[in-house]
Structures are given as C-alpha cells and as structure tokens.
C-alpha cells in the first residue's frame, strides 16, 4: 500500500467533463487502483494535497482560489499535468476575456435582466475574479499537456500507464486527432 503511486486531481475553471471522461476508463479503474492511490480529488473528497507523484488539473485559472489550489498542487506533485482544452488554453471560460471584467460583473450583478437587489458580491470568503482567464501553464510550471475537450478515456489510460510503467508518455496520433 505504501508503495502505491499517489495521484491527485482537481477541476479549476472547468466543467468536470475531463473527470467524467477519466471515469470512462470503466473497469480499467480496478486495474488502476491496484497500483494507484488517490489523494486530493473530487473522487475522494480529500480537501488538501499531501506529497503526490502525479497531479491532474482540469480547467483554467479564473480566480484567486484557482491560483491557491494550483500552487498547492505544484508544491506537492512531482509531475503536474494540464488536462483538457481549458487547462491548456483557457477554453470556454476564457471567452469572457474579450469583454472587460467590469462589464461582465455589471451585467451579472447590477444591470442584467431579472437582477434583484443589485450589488457586487463582496465577502472575504469569496474568491476574486482575475481580469482574464489564464491557461494553467501561465501561472505555474506544467510538465505535461493532455489535449482534448475532453481528452478521451484512452488518452488518460495511455498517459497514466506510460508514466506508471516508467516510460516517457507519448500519445499516438489516433488519440489526438479530432476530425
């Protein structure tokens, strides 16, 4: 048990679609947990990372909490992986980058149709939004990138088994072409 490879996962500004795709490895999950133990992850409900071998990050960085979580992962994971389009490029959440943050907040909380009791939320418990949604490699150093929206279950499987078996991960063309 002590020798199992420790894996942590999280979703920042993402939709959990990458996590769902990961679960699509289906029964292969049983093979995986033979050699892998999950640390912080929505799958385990563990709230903070301890030392891990692999960290899988879904989603981009849209607020200050994302920055803290990402840094916690970087500090604890030997290998940190950007998983999916949002982590790699900002993805859908980054569509707001073309609109100034002030306009976004005004529309959502002050001027939008159906807004009652208009006010900008302000509480020290609430994370503040960054003016732009950022890919995670612009905030911490990232070791590997798994492309796709989401990356298919086979991509997760190939990548993780390569790493676990001590090979340099490589994704064959069939797994990363999308048309």
């Amino acid at each position, binding site marked *: 048990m002590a020798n199992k490879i420790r894996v942590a996962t999280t979703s920042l500004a993402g939709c959990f679609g990458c996590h769902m795709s990961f679960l699509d490895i289906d029964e292969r999950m049983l093979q995986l947990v033979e050699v892998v133990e999950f640390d912080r992850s929505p799958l385990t409900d563990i709230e903070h990372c301890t030392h891990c071998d692999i960290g899988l990050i879904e989603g981009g960085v849209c607020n*200050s909490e994302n*920055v803290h979580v990402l*840094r916690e992962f970087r500090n*604890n994971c030997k290998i940190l992986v950007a998983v999916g389009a949002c982590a790699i490029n900002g993805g859908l959440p980054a569509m707001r980058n073309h609109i*100034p943050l*002030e306009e976004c*907040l005004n529309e959502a909380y002050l001027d939008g149709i159906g807004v009652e009791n208009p006010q*900008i939320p*302000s509480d020290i418990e609430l994370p503040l939004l960054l003016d732009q949604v*950022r890919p995670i490699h612009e905030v911490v150093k990232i070791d590997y990138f798994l492309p796709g929206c989401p990356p298919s279950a086979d991509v997760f499987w190939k990548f993780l088994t390569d790493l676990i078996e001590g090979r340099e991960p490589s994704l064959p063309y069939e797994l990363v072409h999308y048309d």
Partner: protein
Amino acid sequence: MRQFIQGIVENNHQATHLLQILRQIQSRFHYIPEEAIEQLSGLLNIPRTQIISVIEFYSFFHLTRRGRYELLISDSITDHMLGKKDLLGYLENKLAVAVGEVRSDGVVSLDNTSCTGMCDQGPAGLVNGYALTHLDHSSIDKIAALINQQKPLSEWPGELFQVDDNIHKSGLLLNQQLEQGAALKAVLMRGIKETLTEIDKSGLRGRGGAGFKTAMKWQFCSEEQQAERYVVCNADEGEPGTFKDRVLLNTYADQVFEGMTVCAAIIGAKQGFLYLRGEYLHLHDKLQNILEQRRRNGLLGTNILDAGWNFDIEICLGAGAYICGEESALIESLEGKAGIPRNRPPYPVTQGYLGKPTVVNNVETFLAAASIAVNGGDWFAHIGTEKSKGTKILSISGDCARPGIYEYPFGVTVQTILHDCGADDVLGVQVGGPSGSFISDQEFERKLAFEDLATGGSFIIFNTRRNILDMVHNFTHFFAHESCGFCTPCRVGTSLLQKQMDKIVEGHGSAGDVVALEELCQLVKNYSHCGLGQTAANPILTTLERYPDLYQSRLKEISYEPGFDLDGALETARRMANRDDAGAHLAQIEVNEHE
C-alpha cells in the same frame, strides 16, 4: 455619401477594385460607414461580409471613425533607434490624444504603424497616408499647430513631406539612366526570343529575396496555353529596413515600367499592375504622370512602337499589410480580397491574377531586366559571383554615418559595406530584415550573395550600445501584428512568441522559459502555411544561437514565475467588491512551503 460612392463605383465597377474603392471612402469619411458597405455590396454584387472581411484585414481601413487627421507613427526598429518612443510621448502631449485613440473633437487620431520605408530618414510617420520624415520636436510642434488650426494638408509646408533618395553608392544599374524607350527599341531590334536569351545569359535572379531565375519564370509563363497573361510589379516593399523600391520608383520609374513592358512583350501580356504599398502614396501621382507620358510617347497602350504590342499598366495601392509582399497574397489583394497567401503550387506563372498566368517580380528585377535588354546579358553577368550575377541594391539604415541606398556587386563582404557607410563599433547587422538573420561581429567576412547571405536588400546596423533583445522584441511584435490569421501555427504561434518573448525581456522568465521559447519557434517555423510564419521565429532563433548568454542573463533563478502581474489582475475585482483584505491579494511568487 450615396452619390460619392456611386461616383467612385462608376469608374471602378468591378469587385477586383474593392481595395481602391475602399481607399477612397476611407480617405473621404475617415472610416468605412455601414451604409457604404451596404451600397457597395449591391453595386459590386458581393456579400457584405466579404467587404467587412477586407476592411478588417487591412490596417488602413477602419469600421469606426478615425480622426480627420489620421496620424500614424512608424514602429520600425530603426525609428526606435532614432528616438521614436520619446517623440510619440511628445506627440500625445502636444495633441492631447493617446496612442490608439481619436481625440474627442474628432479632429485627430494617433496610432503606430509598421515600418513606412523611411528608415534612412526617420523617425517617420504618415498623415492621412502621406509620408512624414525626420520627425523631431520642432516638426511635431509645427504638425500639432497645423492640426489644431485644421489647415488642409495642401497648405502644410513641403519640408515636412520631403523624402530624399540618399543614393550614396551607385553601380551597374544606378549609374546608367536609360533613355525612355531604349529597352523596348532594343527588344525590337534584337527580337523577343533573343532578348529572353540575353536575360537568361545575364543570370538575373529575382531581387525580392527568394532569387528565382527571372528568365525561367518568364519562359514558364509564356509557355502556358492561355489567351490572357499578366505582369505584376511587386512594390509592396514592407520588410522593415527596406526602402530601395521607394527610391527606384522615385527616380528610375520609367525604367521599371520599361522592364515591365519588356516582360509583357516576351510573355505576351496585355495588362500589367504596379502594386504600390499604401505607405508610398506620395509617389502615386508622379507615377501616374510617367505612365501618361509613356502612353503619349507610344511606349504604352495600343500598338507600342508600331510593333503591334498592346500593353498598359495600372497602379493599385495597398492598404497596410506586410503579407501582401508575398506574391500570391499580393495577387489576392489585386483581386480586391484580403491578402491571404494561396497554396502553391499552382504558382502564379500558371495560375495567377484571375487564375491566368502571371509574372510577379520585384521593382529592382524589372529595372535590371530593362538594363539587360539594352546592354546584353554579358554586361550583367561579368559582375558578381558564380551563382549571383550582377549587383544588389541595398537599403542601409541603423547605426552608421550615411544611411541610404548602396549598390554593390554580389559577393561584397559585410565588412566592406560597414566601412563604406561609416559604421563604427558594430555589434552586428540584421541582414534581410526581420525575416532574415542577425550577423554577429564574428561574421563580417561573410558575403552578400545567394550562396551565403541572401537578402532582399534590408541591412540594419546595430552598434555595441544597442540591446539585441530590444530588436528581437520589436521584430517579434511585428510578425504577431502582420500575421494574416489564416493558419493556426502562425496566427496563434506568433502571438505566443510575442508573449513568451515579453515574459523573458521583462524579467519574469526562468530556466524552462527559454526551452519553451525554442520549442515554440520550431513549431511556428515548421508548421506555418507561408513564408511569414516560416520566418517569424528567425529573429529569436538567430540571436538565441549567437547570444545564448544574453537570454540566460534575463532569467530568474527560480523554477517559475508568471509572465503577468498576478496581483494586478485582481485589481478590477478588488475595486468593484470594495475589498483590500489579505485574501484579496496574490503574491507574484509563492515560496514553497514544503521545502
């Protein structure tokens, strides 16, 4: 407005003239109004989206109103070396308008523009498309006063617009001004086939930089089984640091037109185009007059020299797009479209303008061809090197006593050139513009020739007080701005190169960042659709190879730092939520708690 547009379209009723039509509308209204787009769409029978895509593609067209005086300042590295940044700030103050903005009274707008081809007499700019040179505090004072008094450009003092040739060294071509019609008469005497043989014998290769054999290009075009053929002169001289075509068209235009006419006689073309970059608007009327004069003298039009040749030349102005110097993008632009390079093959000699066989050559190539027609192939071929015959006209700028035009036999060393133009204490030279390569002081024995340093003619000198990274930074931004946006490796890649370069130059880089930069360079270089993307990484690659320590010295000894101000990125949210507690801030670098 309706009448104005109706009037323009009556003279230019084809969709191929869209660029020329939009230029007139932009010039009159200082933007392209929505009504104009609707009207043009109907008159030219093209979709409005196509018109909008053309407007958005070219830097000199705008969908929102610019100032009645539209002031653009050249952003070439040579302008920066002459103090552009300080002058731009001075202008902002004097005119009370920020860069990129229109003043609230609508009188003036100010912005940057890519190199305007005045590198030997910068800092330079454009006002409503007309070239301004030698900008300094006193000329800016004058300009600001004229604008504030709203004086028409025609009443501005001529010295503001004075453009000098600055020819410092003439050779084979520049020494000899041909008499008007001499080349055509020579063709008539010698015969068309025989003239092509002479051009072949001369070894003349294209002067734009790529160096394709001219005679072979003309031969290929003439062999195509098509009724119509075209001759295009590429005067879209956009490579920063190049300005020889400006001088050739100012002083040797007759000979350039003559070279085009010789080409037309050889390939059997009836129509030619001079694609003149928009920045050279000041040459337009002069060139039109020369064409008119040639028509009157029987050297253009129908039955030229009573030899039964029919050929005429039309001048088409560009609208601020570097990519249109690429021949297939230029042809797209001539057809009234956005200048997006075509797939090649088919090359223009088989399918060019309107799908017909087309010869596209540089201004200097046509000039040389006219001289060769008169003097014969041997006259040209006895000068130069084995694979690079004749001479090359260079545009020299940067840190030297005498910037300007120099003509050298091919094979001349960098050292000789530096000596002639009075350059001391030289750190290195950018040969061939941003898409060329940087030559360090260890390589001054290298030769300008297709065998060694191929160049379109740009030669920018940097002395030891300059910082190479400033140059690389400027060039990298240039490519990101000029990418046509068609292919992802270039559109996204050049922006990423710019971002990564900024990160390192601004001191936020760490060890992995230079590796990432190099990988990105290879990707952009190897996967881009056309020459722009394939060369956009050259400034980084050629300097990284020669000065790796310079890049390393900018790096921090930490594993990683974001390239943007993390805490600053929270500023808007902080202000709107009215917060300033510790949780409302982020440290730029977080100390690893576990080590």
